[in-house]
């Protein structure tokens, strides 16, 4: 024991190990934030490449490039990788890097758990991708083709080893998300600097605290559903098998009980960081702080009681359909509070339009469209037409890309000089923004019209009358993919040869993280700062 005690005491004064071991064993929140964000970016491009193949198939009617089975695998992997591999890890990276800086903490509260949560992700991604590559060497039937919520078809129709891989990947991703969420809650509740009262916390911290609550309550349900699916497939249980007294609808209930909070798990961190950016470039304080905190809580609560609006055509009783319609529409009230607070933030401000501000405004516009299209979807009467059509695809991407990705790009540009200590090329940043806006809308507006016209999703081929819309959409998607390569160039150029950034970075920037030099030193706030 004495030996161990001296070893512990000795370790504390050592410098981090060099090379790869530093990154594998690190307990530093900034290292882990960088790792999370880099991983998210890499997965963003892998998921993008997959969907380029899908759009290439849809460029013309008929089957040219892909078999229907391969098509199913590609869109399923695209969805799982983008949601669990790209967006969520990137948001977690932002919280890792920023929350301790924003609340004046020395690190995250549970640094080793933090490392554990990150290093699950590459292994989970491997589990998702292994069966996809195994099929080319003749082993198995490829990756899961069930869609990201795993009930696209019944238990046996599209089975294969890929679904089992996906189930275990989901278990590992669940461990990662839950451990990360617990870390956020503990950090926020226990690590704030003296004087940093809850109602003084930056909105990004609030939003992540609420996101963490949702993750802790929703993610285990997804794990449980995946477990039941696994035992139904291989161990002879009958949760979802009607012939043995089970019910396939139960799988949908369980998955959407997770799936709907998941939407807000993706969006809340973005809603938290947008007010920072809007306030900075309008040179005004955050507008409606208290209202936004309450609205975020309201959305957290409502997100748990609306899940069946994803299942309105599954044969629910009418009373349940009406309930889920109204409860879903009720979400528009706190969401509107947020939107009006964002508009209030820029109202009569001294605005300038740097790249982060452009992306933040792009977020407000596109998320607004996603939210408005979302308002009509739960309408029971019209849902039958929209359900499982490209309307859903279009709406979904307006919220997740137009909302989630635009917001995260805004955050990336906003805090990149803080992370790297160097400024990026403003002109190229603006070019990236405009290319993204144009190609994004070119991709997803036609899908809306094709969907209204009745084009079903999840199918590799389509009727001839959808040709024009799909052609435009595919060309837009290729442009969208290509213009993201510009982002890679901008970030590399920034890291290698950008001009030095000041600690303040942006003229109007507020918050504890901007009182530190750029980049902040390896250890920050080892002695808590005093917050007025």
């Amino acid at each position: 024991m004495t030996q161990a005690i001296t070893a512990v005491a000795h370790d504390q004064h050592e410098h981090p190990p060099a090379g790869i071991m530093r990154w594998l064993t690190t307990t530093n929140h900034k290292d882990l934030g960088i790792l999370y964000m880099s991983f998210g970016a890499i997965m963003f491009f892998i998921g993008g490449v997959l969907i380029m193949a899908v759009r290439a198939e849809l460029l013309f009617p008929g089957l040219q490039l892909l078999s229907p089975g391969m098509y199913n695998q590609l869109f399923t992997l695209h969805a799982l990788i983008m949601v669990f591999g790209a967006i969520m890890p990137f948001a977690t990276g932002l919280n890792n890097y920023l929350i301790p800086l924003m609340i004046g903490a020395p690190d995250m509260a549970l640094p080793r758990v933090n490392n554990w949560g990150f290093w699950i992700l590459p292994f989970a991604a491997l589990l998702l991708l292994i069966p996809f590559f195994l099929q080319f060497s003749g082993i198995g039937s490829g990756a899961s083709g069930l869609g990201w919520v795993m009930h696209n078809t019944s238990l046996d129709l599209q089975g294969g080893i890929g679904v089992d891989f996906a189930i275990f990947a989901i278990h590992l991703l669940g461990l990662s998300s839950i451990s990360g969420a617990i870390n956020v809650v503990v950090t926020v509740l226990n690590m704030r600097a003296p004087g940093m009262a809850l109602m003084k916390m930056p909105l990004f911290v609030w939003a992540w605290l609420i996101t963490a609550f949702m993750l802790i309550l929703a993610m285990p349900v997804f794990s449980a559903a995946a477990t039941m699916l696994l035992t139904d497939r291989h161990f002879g249980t009958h949760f979802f098998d009607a012939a043995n007294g089970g019910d396939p609808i139960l799988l949908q209930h369980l998955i959407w009980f997770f799936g709907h909070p998941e939407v807000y798990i993706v969006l809340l961190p973005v809603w938290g960081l947008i007010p920072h950016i809007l306030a900075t470039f309008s040179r005004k304080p955050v507008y409606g702080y208290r209202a936004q905190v309450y609205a975020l809580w309201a959305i957290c609560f409502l997100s748990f009681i609306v899940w069946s609006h994803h299942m309105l055509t599954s044969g629910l009783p009418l009373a349940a359909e009406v309930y889920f319609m109204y409860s879903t529409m009720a979400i528009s009230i706190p969401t509107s509070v947020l939107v009006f607070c964002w508009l209030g933030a820029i109202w009569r401000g001294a605005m300038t339009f740097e790249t982060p501000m452009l992306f933040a405004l792009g977020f407000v516009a596109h998320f607004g469209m996603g939210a408005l299209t979302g308002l009509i979807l739960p309408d029971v009467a019209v849902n039958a037409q929209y359900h499982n059509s490209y309307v859903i695809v279009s709406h979904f991407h307006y919220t997740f890309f137009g909302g989630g990705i635009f917001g995260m790009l805004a955050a990336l540009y906003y805090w990149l000089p803080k992370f790297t200590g160097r400024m990026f090329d403003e002109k190229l940043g603006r070019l990236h923004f405009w290319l993204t806006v144009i190609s994004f809308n070119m991709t997803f507006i036609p899908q809306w019209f094709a969907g209204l016209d009745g084009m079903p999703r999840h199918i590799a081929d389509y009727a001839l009358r959808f040709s024009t819309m799909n052609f435009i959409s595919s060309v837009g998607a290729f442009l969208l993919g290509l213009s993201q390569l510009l982002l890679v160039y901008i970030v590399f150029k920034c890291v290698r040869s950008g001009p030095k950034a000041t600690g303040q970075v942006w003229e109007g920037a507020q918050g504890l993280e901007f009182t530190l030099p750029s980049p902040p030193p390896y250890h920050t706030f080892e002695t808590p700062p005093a917050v007025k």
Partner: protein
Amino acid sequence: MSETRSDSHYYVPPPSHYPVTINLGLFVLALGFVLRINAIASGVVPILAGMAVVFYGAFGWLGKIICEDESGNYHPWEDRSFRIGMVYFILSEIAFFASFLLALMYVRVFVLPELASMDPRYTLWPDFRGTWPSGGPKSQAFTPLNAWGIPAANAILILASAVSMMWARKGLSTANRGQMVAGLAMALALGVAFLFQQAMEYRHAAELGITLATGVYGTNFYMLTGMHGAHLLAGIIMLAVLLLRAFHGHFKAESSVGLELVAWYWNFVVVIPGLLIFIYFYWL
């Protein structure tokens, strides 16, 4: 207590290879599991290797935490982190158990009454009765389990283990080490007895014809009790570690976070789900 207590310095642990080691083990374990359930027998090798790596990592990591605790690195500030973290971990476990209990409730409250309310001219299947217990049309004949045999005895065992944990914590706070050790040992023995009885119950269920082939009844029985048993087994390992630490003189009234976190785990992840399963599956 080699260092003075301080509220202004938080212990940030040095780099550690245990987390990534555990993840490597989990990956190999998952890989082996996928192979094994797809009838590739050699999957057993990665399963065993993965489990060995996970156990090595977990023992190393937790051992390190115990060392850090005993060498006085943790103060009330770090203590609070562990406590809050445990509360939210337990919350996630509750959500996990709730999913299985709600899956049972879904069958009992929604599916069966819905089927029973259908037009009686349509025969759903011969001998259909819209009441629980039911195994569905393809189920073999079975006799439902009686709550007032082993299940009731087990419910009492598990309640008694919660009481003895409470008694052990009382011994800790009044500096009565004998009482603490006896309470822990009793809770451990009661947990082991529960597990043994549960195995007996499985044998009894098999005699009554309840297998996974008895439809949704067998499914819910084995999954609920199996999940509970797995968590109980983890709890038993935790209690065994606590007992060993208590023999080595660990835990004092003012530094007892390890013991208290296990007590919370025991109460909320082992005792309460066990009672709920008794009430909602066996009894009502």
